[in-house]
């Protein structure tokens, strides 16, 4: 078992420590020492001074445009934007002065003058950085007037994202998120002066450009200018309709973050309390998406083994390696737009959300004796792209729309609040049958590296016939965990492999061809990082030699998804990851199953329903899908622009 250093990770572990040169600055009379190149904002923080910010975001490179963070630098006529001022020489800073106070107040007044929106009807009411600033600076009237009539675009055409530019404060966070963090570049600045606005290419609606619906821009928008499409009304109507059987599946990442919406610190898991809340609200059944995550692992792991066999042993080049994971719909659309030539590398497995959807309206409805037309299948997802995914025309294999409504963490939190329950006070409750028991492997899908780790737990056991715990302590495959942009790992299989297990009977003759083989694996999160890895693959670099690569569109994986509570930062995402790995470990400590292929409900499904096994005929029909090349600049669906097929 060896690992190689990650691409883009500065410094190798164990290497000599580099001491950065430092510089001493004076902040409000206190001397602090900071690394050369640190910003005034960082120095002030070190000195215990809080400077207000708006365009600054810890995940993004600074642009210094809102100017709310201005401070005095001794010897300079103009104030300086502390977020964007790198310190290279000893300087003297004053974070507060008459000029600073007046400037900040005026800037807030100007933002309010430009702003058109009313807090009472805004999805960000109570969690809005503009509101906070207005409060902090004691704005008690609109000194420079304010807009009452919308003059800017309000784009409601997208499947996932609503953009109300009347509420935009021009912080450019969305643009930096989309270009620098996500490498998509769906948004840019158009116009000048007073008519400057953020816009997709050619002022097209967001649904008609290369936007992958990841929602990362929403997570970093300080105001209500960017919000998810709100589908909660559809769910209320279904719940209130006595003829409907309303079920919900909940994914692990929202459960690790939902507590934040109710004032709990990041990283407080609320999985079991959430089950009670969902029943209270009126859902008929609450299922765990981990069930279909386990299913995905079996299908995707099987596909991987078959693909390797067909490609490496039978020489079938139509089954290219590496295989890419396909559970992140933002990532899927990214590949469809930008690297359509690599679509054959994408696993044909549907995401866990969609697999579950297809099974609920077939196997489950049949078992329960309910007409699938009366089933309303809802999902709780960390992700805005799941809304787009659930509406894809490919996702109707059950004969119905497989998933009717994909809710984000934020939307469901609103529903719970609206119902009048305080989530932290609720008792714990288990998931409902017949999908009840899930495994820890499904849980870790919520973190970057989780799909890879879950798949490895299963693949290693399938081919070695040995317990994965014998190879990795507690079945924790730590080399694929972490938050580095890209992780690369190698796993060398033993020379002795087991027999082909029953579940794969007839699909491969033996494992002889894998004896002593080294599996090369990579884990990538954030589509900007995906772009680097894909370029490397196209150029025939070292990632082209991988066998299996996990890609997640969002930084941190699903736990950093675009539908998660706002705000977000590396610290918050790490705390959520702890909640997720904690839940996985809990499965181990309580003697529950941690490996997908041991999930009894999944095994029952293969016995009762998917009787020709993983990647068999029925599974192919219900659980697998196809992909569509789309345009590189504007969204085409092989069918033309603006035909609604992207919405």
């Amino acid at each position, binding site marked *: 078992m060896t690992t190689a250093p990650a691409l883009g990770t500065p410094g190798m572990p164990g290497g000599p420590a580099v001491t950065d040169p430092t510089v001493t600055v004076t902040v409000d009379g206190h001397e602090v020492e900071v690394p050369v190149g640190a910003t005034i904002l960082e120095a002030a923080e070190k000195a215990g001074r809080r400077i207000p910010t708006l365009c600054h975001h810890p995940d993004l490179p600074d642009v210094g445009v809102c100017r709310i963070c201005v401070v005095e630098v001794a010897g300079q006529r103009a104030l300086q934007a502390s977020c964007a001022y790198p310190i290279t020489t000893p300087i003297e800073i004053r974070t507060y002065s008459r000029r600073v106070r007046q400037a900040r107040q*005026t800037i807030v007044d100007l933002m309010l003058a430009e702003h058109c929106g009313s807090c009472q009807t805004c999805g960000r009411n109570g969690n809005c950085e503009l509101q906070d600033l207005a409060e902090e600076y004691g704005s008690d009237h609109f000194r420079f007037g304010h807009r009452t009539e919308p003059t800017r675009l309000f784009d409601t055409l997208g499947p996932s994202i609503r953009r109300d530019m009347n509420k935009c404060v021009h912080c450019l966070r969305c643009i930096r998120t989309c270009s620098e963090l996500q490498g998509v570049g769906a948004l840019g600045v158009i116009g000048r002066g007073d008519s400057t606005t953020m816009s997709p290419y050619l002022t097209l609606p967001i649904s008609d450009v290369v936007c992958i619906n990841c929602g990362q821009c929403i997570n970093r928008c300080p105001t209500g200018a960017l919000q998810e499409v709100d589908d909660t009304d559809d769910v209320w109507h279904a719940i209130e309709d006595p003829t409907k059987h309303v079920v919900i599946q909940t994914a692990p990442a929202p459960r690790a973050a939902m507590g934040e919406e109710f004032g709990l610190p990041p990283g407080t898991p609320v999985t079991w309390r959430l089950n009670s809340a969902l029943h209270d609200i009126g859902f008929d059944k609450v299922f765990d998406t981990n069930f279909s995550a386990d299913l995905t692992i079996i299908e995707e792991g099987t596909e991987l083994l078959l693909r390797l066999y067909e490609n490496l042993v039978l020489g079938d080049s139509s089954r290219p390696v590496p295989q890419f994971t396909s559970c992140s719909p933002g990532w899927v659309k990214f590949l469809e737009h930008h690297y359509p030539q690599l679509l054959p590398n994408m696993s044909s497995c549907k995401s866990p959300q969609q697999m579950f959807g297809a099974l609920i309206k077939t196997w489950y409805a049949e078992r329960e004796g309910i007409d699938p037309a009366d089933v309303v299948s809802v999902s709780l997802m960390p992700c805005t792209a799941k809304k787009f995914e659930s509406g894809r025309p490919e996702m109707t294999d059950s004969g119905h729309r497989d998933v009717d409504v994909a809710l984000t963490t934020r939307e469901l939190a609103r529903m719970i609040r609206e119902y009048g329950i305080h989530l932290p006070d609720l008792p714990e409750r288990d998931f409902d049958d017949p999908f009840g028991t899930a495994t820890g492997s499904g849980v870790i899908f919520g973190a970057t590296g989780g799909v890879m780790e879950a798949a490895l737990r299963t693949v290693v056991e399938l081919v070695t016939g040995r317990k994965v715990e014998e190879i990795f302590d507690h079945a924790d495959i730590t080399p694929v965990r972490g938050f580095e942009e890209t992780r690369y790992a190698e796993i060398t299989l033993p020379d002795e492999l087991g027999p082909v297990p029953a579940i794969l009977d007839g699909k491969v003759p033996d494992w002889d061809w894998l004896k002593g083989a080294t599996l090369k694996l990579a884990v990538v999160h954030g589509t900007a990082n995906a772009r680097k890895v894909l370029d490397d693959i196209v150029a025939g670099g070292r990632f082209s030699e991988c066998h299996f690569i996990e890609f997640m569109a969002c930084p941190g994986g699903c736990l950093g998804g675009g539908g998660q509570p706002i705000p977000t930062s590396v610290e918050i995402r790490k705390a959520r990851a702890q909640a997720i790995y904690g839940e996985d470990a809990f499965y181990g400590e309580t003697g529950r199953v941690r490996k997908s292929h041991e999930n009894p409900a999944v095994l029952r499904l293969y016995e009762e329903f998917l009787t020709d096994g993983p990647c068999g005929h029925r599974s192919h029909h219900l659980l697998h899908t196809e992909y569509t090349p789309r345009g590189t600049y504007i969204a085409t669906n092989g069918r033309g622009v603006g035909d609604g097929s992207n919405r």
Partner: protein
Amino acid sequence: MSVRTPMTLATIEAEQGLRAALALAPEEVVATIKESGMKGRGGAGFPTGVKWGLAAEAPAPDGVRYVVCNADEGEPGTFKDRVLLSELPDLVFEGMTIGGYAIGSAHGICYLRGEYVYLLEDLEACLARRREAGLLGRDVLGSGFDFDIEIHLGSGAYVCGEETALIESLEGRRGEPRNRPPFPVVSGFHGAPTVVNNVETFAWAAAILARGADWFAHIGTDRSTGPKLLSVSGDVERPGVYEFPLGVSIREVVEAAGGGEAKAAIVGGAAGTCVPARDFDRAISYEDVSTGGAVIVVGPWRDLLEVAENLQWFFVNESCGQCTPCRVGNIKLLEGIRRLRAGELSRRELDDLVGLGHTMQIASKCGLGQAAPNVLLSIIEHYRAEVLGHIPVGAR
């Protein structure tokens, strides 16, 4: 636009400055410019020799540095760079070449205002002639120094005259000013040390090398050395380009152009300041009334608030829209001026406008927003009674 006074620059012999420079070590060229005391002719007035010295000393990992000539001349009321580019392009390019030698750069870029596209052909021809004559290209005049110049055409944004926006534009992005530090001399075009100078600055640099630092330093005042080209326009009989030693009084300039009865002069263009006639003894110099070259004379019959409204409208349109004080501030100033003129502004609102102007001056990201309230504020300061007269009696 006519040239109204003899131009010293027209008397500088071709190649003289360049040959003198190549005979010196690069540091000596920088030292010569420093000794001349010349400050930038584009408006900000940074000492040119210091700028060149910083760029020469800044670490350049692959040895690449750039010399950029700012020929974006977009300040309303400024047209002296156009005259230089059409009449003395050789001298401008010679100055750039000297700059390249001084800072150790092989690449010159001339960023030409989009509206000056009609000059492009002649400028390209001039560059071609210079290459043929061995004044550009490999091994300039047999000195072993390589230098060439390319021309990049802007597309009409005033803000692209701001040096960091200019660099963004050169790199193919929206022309939006960058944060400083780092300054272009340390990290400019593609992150390389870059000197950006005005057209006129380069022309004088060539002249200084030809005639000597002393010659230049003895013209003008102690802190504002050398002659300066001024673009004089507005309510005058003889608009055009004038040369005066720095330190000249505004009165002398206005009178030379035949603006006898003037009520005020807007010195420095839209980004400048309004000087009332009673202050015409003030000097055009970096230490007193500074200008990139524009003197707009305002006749006695004009409504100054109308002038202010006109100029504010310019900034509303030319703001790049990046930062809050300038993007929103300019439109609020414009609205304020309109309401003032319509007799709808209260005294308190006027004070708010002045406060807004002060914030724009110190909190905007670049010089555009920082200078945008100047004319209005100077009018309110110098014509207080007239301005307050617009405020309805009950709202004073």
